[in-house]
C-alpha cells in the first residue's frame, strides 16, 4: 500500500524516467530484430532498415506507449479512491470516528494557531511595541501545581519597580475584573480591566471622547469613571457620545457609592488601540495601587506592563527588576 502511494506521488514527476524506459525498450527491440534478420542472411544495413520498417512509425508508437503510461497514475488514483470509498462504506463507524478525529484535530490546531498567531507572531499595535515588556513575578521552580508561572504582584511591589528600577519609562498595571452594566431594566455582566492611570498613555492609546484616567481618579471618593472601547461604544452604546450610564463594579451593589458608579462618566477609547486580545477589555476603570493603607493586603491580581527606556537592553532591565 505504501509503495503504491509512493508510486502515485512520484508518477507526475517520473515523465523523464518513463520516456527513457520506453526508448530503452524500443531500442532493444529494434536491435534484437535486426540481429535476427541478419542471422537470416540480410546484410547489416538492410537488417536495420527492415527492423525499423516492420516496427512501424517509432515516434507514433512511442507516443501511444507514453499515452498509456501517463494516464497510469490517474487509473491508480481512481482505483485507490474506489477502494477507499468501499472500505469506508463497509466500516462506517470507524470511518466516522476517523473523520471526526481529523476534523477536531484540524479544528483545534487551527484555533490554537489563530490565538498564537494573534498573540505571538503579529507585532503588537502599540507605539514602541518593541520596547514594551511584560513584568511578572513568577512562582518558584517546583512550586506545587505550577512551576515558574505568572503570579500575582502586590501593588507596593509595582510601585517599587516604578520608582527604583530606572530601566522603565513608565510602569502600568492591569487586572481583569467583572462589571455589571445596568441599562434598560437589564443587568449585564461585562468583562473589563482595571488599569492604572498611565496605562493608556503607555500603550499609546487615545481617547476620542472624554479623557483617559488621571491620578485624581484613583483618590478615595473620586467620581467613578469608565473608559469603553470604540467597538463597545459603537455596538452597545449606539455611538452616542452623551451616553452616561456606564458599567458598574460587580458585587458592590450595596455600597454607598453605588449610585455614583451607576452614573459613571464614559470616555471612549479610540479604535486605533488595536489591543491584542489579552488587553481588549470592553470597559476599563481606574485602578489604584493602594499603597500605605493596604500594605499588608493579600497579593493582588495585577499584571504589570512597563516600557523600557530607549537605551536599556532587556537583560539590564530584567536584572534591575529582580535585583
Amino acid at each position: 500500500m505504501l509503495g503504491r502511494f509512493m508510486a502515485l506521488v512520484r508518477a507526475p514527476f517520473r515523465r523523464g524516467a518513463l520516456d527513457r524506459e520506453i526508448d530503452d525498450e524500443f531500442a532493444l527491440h529494434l536491435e534484437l530484430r535486426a540481429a535476427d534478420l541478419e542471422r537470416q542472411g540480410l546484410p547489416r544495413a538492410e537488417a536495420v532498415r527492415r527492423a525499423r520498417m516492420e516496427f512501424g512509425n517509432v515516434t507514433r508508437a512511442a507516443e501511444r506507449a507514453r499515452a498509456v503510461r501517463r494516464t497510469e497514475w490517474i487509473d491508480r488514483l481512481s482505483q485507490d479512491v474506489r477502494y477507499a470509498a468501499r472500505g469506508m462504506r463497509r466500516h462506517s463507524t470507524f470511518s466516522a470516528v476517523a473523520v471526526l478525529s481529523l476534523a477536531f484535530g484540524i479544528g483545534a490546531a487551527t484555533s490554537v494557531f489563530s490565538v498564537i498567531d494573534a498573540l505571538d507572531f503579529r507585532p503588537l499595535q502599540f507605539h514602541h511595541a518593541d520596547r514594551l515588556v511584560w513584568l511578572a513575578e513568577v512562582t518558584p521552580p517546583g512550586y506545587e501545581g505550577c512551576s515558574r508561572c505568572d503570579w500575582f504582584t502586590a501593588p507596593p511591589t509595582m510601585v517599587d519597580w516604578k520608582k527604583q528600577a530606572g530601566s522603565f519609562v513608565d510602569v502600568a498595571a492591569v487586572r481583569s475584573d467583572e462589571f455589571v452594566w445596568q441599562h434598560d431594566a437589564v443587568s449585564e455582566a461585562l468583562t473589563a480591566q482595571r488599569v492604572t492611570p498611565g496605562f493608556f498613555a503607555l500603550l499609546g492609546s487615545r481617547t476620542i471622547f472624554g479623557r483617559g484616567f488621571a491620578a485624581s481618579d484613583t483618590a478615595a471618593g473620586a467620581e467613578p469613571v469608565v473608559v469603553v472601547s470604540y467597538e463597545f461604544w459603537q455596538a452597545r452604546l449606539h455611538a452616542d457620545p452623551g451616553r452616561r450610564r456606564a458599567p458598574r463594579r460587580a458585587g458592590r451593589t450595596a455600597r454607598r457609592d453605588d449610585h455614583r458608579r451607576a452614573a459613571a462618566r464614559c470616555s471612549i477609547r479610540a479604535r486605533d488601540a488595536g489591543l491584542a486580545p489579552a488587553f481588549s477589555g470592553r470597559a476599563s476603570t481606574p485602578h489604584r495601587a493602594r499603597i500605605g493603607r493596604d500594605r499588608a493586603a493579600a497579593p493582588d491580581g495585577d499584571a504589570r506592563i512597563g516600557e523600557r527606556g530607549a537605551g536599556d537592553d532587556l537583560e539590564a532591565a530584567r536584572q534591575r527588576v529582580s535585583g
Partner: protein
Amino acid sequence: VPERVTVVPGTLDLLILRAVSLGELHGYAILTRIEQITNGALQIEQGALYPALYRLEQRKFLAGEWRTGENNRRVKVYSLTRAGRRQLADETDSWTAFVRAMSAALRARPAEG
C-alpha cells in the same frame, strides 16, 4: 511463407497473455514467441505491441521488471500475474465460445426440405 493475416482487433492482449504464460519474456521475445506459437500466420504491428504491454501491466495482468541482461543491457521482463492467469483463462473461454459460434454460423447450410 504462409500467408499472414493481421490480428483481429482486441485479440492482441490475449495473444500476449498466452505468450507470457509460457514463461517470462521481454518485449521482442514476446513478439517472436507469438510468431512461433501461431506458426508465423499472424502479422503483428510491432509498434502496437508496447502500448498493449503497458496497458496489461497497468491492469495488473502483467508484471514488468527491469533487469540487467547480457552486455549490461537493461531489459524489461514481463511475467504473468495471478490476475493475468485468471484473465487468460476467462478470455480463452470466451474466445473459444466465440470461434465455435462463428464457425457454426459460417458452416450452416440451408435446411433440406
